[in-house]
């Protein structure tokens, strides 16, 4: 049975696409046949982050409309054999997405033998975002440690609990995970930023991980490489931890404690 996971947040710019790219890569590296679908019709960027923008021939809307089949649209990732990307359309708009169409795509992916199907949701609570979460079995709710992001994540959780198929059909509810991104332990220490514990207390869903704020993320997207590939980066390590926890392995939380740099580092330019 394929597991459908939606990466959503409500708020824009918090790290959904970065997370979708890294987690789908992480699962594929573990040997699972993984597909990642961009639901941001008209504003696609998953293909850029994954570095396959020049190989896009057909997209999700083409498949939904029957203009192409899945095999023609799926793009094999250049880093990872088990990973396939289904990009969004750039020229159409989200009205082209239909529930029956999306359901069929997901069923077809399951028949192709995929273990995990990640749905990269657009920001907002409108059609694209609702389509991305409708068929989800699990949800990773991405939130920055910041009040408006938390409020929007709360809103999307409410929508997940009322508009997902699992909710409407009264089945076991969508399994929710909280991922706090762009975390800066120093700013938390200084009282400028919410701590991950505050965020968790407000949203009351289990925490799957904390991704530290890092310049590496920008570098990775410029290179067209998911951040999880960057060796020796805190972000990559944090995403690897998230994938491990997702697969029910225990990992202690890293990158959440602020360590004051030693005197020398402070004198010579430490942060």
């Amino acid at each position, binding site marked *: 049975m394929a597991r459908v996971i939606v990466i959503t947040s409500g708020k824009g710019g918090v790290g959904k696409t970065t997370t979708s790219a890294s987690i789908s890569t992480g699962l594929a590296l573990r040997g699972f046949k993984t597909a990642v679908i961009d639901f941001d019709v008209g504003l696609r960027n998953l293909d850029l982050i994954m570095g396959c923008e020049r190989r896009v021939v057909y997209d999700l809307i083409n498949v939904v409309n029957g203009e192409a089949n899945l095999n023609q649209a799926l793009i094999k990732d250049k880093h990872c054999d088990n990973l396939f990307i289904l990009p969004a359309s750039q020229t159409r708009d989200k009205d082209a997405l239909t529930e029956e169409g999306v359901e069929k795509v997901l069923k077809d992916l399951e028949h192709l033998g995929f273990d995990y199907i990640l749905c990269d949701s657009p920001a907002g609570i409108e059609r694209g975002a609702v389509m991305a979460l409708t068929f989800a079995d699990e949800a990773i709710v991405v939130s920055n440690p910041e009040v408006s992001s938390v*409020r929007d994540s*709360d*809103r999307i*959780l*409410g*929508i997940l*609990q*009322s*508009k997902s198929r699992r*909710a409407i059909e009264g089945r076991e509810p969508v399994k929710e995970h909280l991922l706090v991104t762009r975390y800066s332990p120093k700013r938390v220490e200084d009282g400028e930023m919410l701590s991950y514990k505050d965020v968790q207390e*407000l949203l*009351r869903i289990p925490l799957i991980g904390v991704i530290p704020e890092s310049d590496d993320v920008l570098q990775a997207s410029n290179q067209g490489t998911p951040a999880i590939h960057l060796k020796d980066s805190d972000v990559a390590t944090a995403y690897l931890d998230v994938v491990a926890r997702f697969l029910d392995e225990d990992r202690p939380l890293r990158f959440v404690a602020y360590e004051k740099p030693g005197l020398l580092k402070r004198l010579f330019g430490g942060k």
Partner: protein
Amino acid sequence: MADASLQGKLIEFKGASLAVMTAYVRETDAVRLADALHMMLGGMPDFFAGEPAILDFSQLGNSPDRVDWTAVLSLLRRYQLQPVGVRNLDEHLQEGARRAGLAVLRAESFSAERPVAAAQPRTPPPAPAPAPAPTLSPTPVEAAPQAPAAAPSDNGLAPTLVVDRPLRSGQQVYAKGGDLVLLAGMSPGSEIIADGSIHCYGPLRGRALAGARGDTSARIFSTNFGPELVSIAGVYRTFERGIPQTVAGRGAQVRLTGSDNLHTLEITPLQYD
């Protein structure tokens, strides 16, 4: 080709009884009515969810020469209330009501009025969870808020509505005719409404409106007090200057004190250890 025996049966008339709400209208000026409704219902569209109502004019403060029925009816319909008839209306106004499509009802048409739960003082249940009642997940805010469909018991009380999952921002729950219990608190930006009292186990962080149909004895209880707005029978309070220290984040109750025209909200901490 319709069967000959069915010819007369294309529409059939039978007696039926309908439990319906009465709205005691004390002001016929649409502008002032609009203000009053807005204050009571916090600007919630669809509040009544299409429910029919009788407009009773026995408590009218003045004796107008005419009523702008179009304005009044469209105002009520904006809150999704469906006025179907009038009673105790002065004779010179009845023709206007009829032309506006309302039935002019005679007092004899009404059976003895059941005291609605709202009219009776109701003692709040003790702090441990009240007797098991239908549990409902919060309904999506897009749909009209629903209450359990169970018939009210003989004393006119509806079963308590129990919500067992955290209420999220943007969600709204309405406990019609009874009390509301939240077992997992509510987030900022969510809204709970009850005709009776509200009992919140967990953080109370959104808007809480008790006694929504005018029950001044309704109360709001919470184990962790921190709302954006509380209201009892339309008397409301926001917390721009923050929640008072004595109750912030602690067990607290909100009740209405004072008499008819001088109600105030009193918020006191709860000691229950």
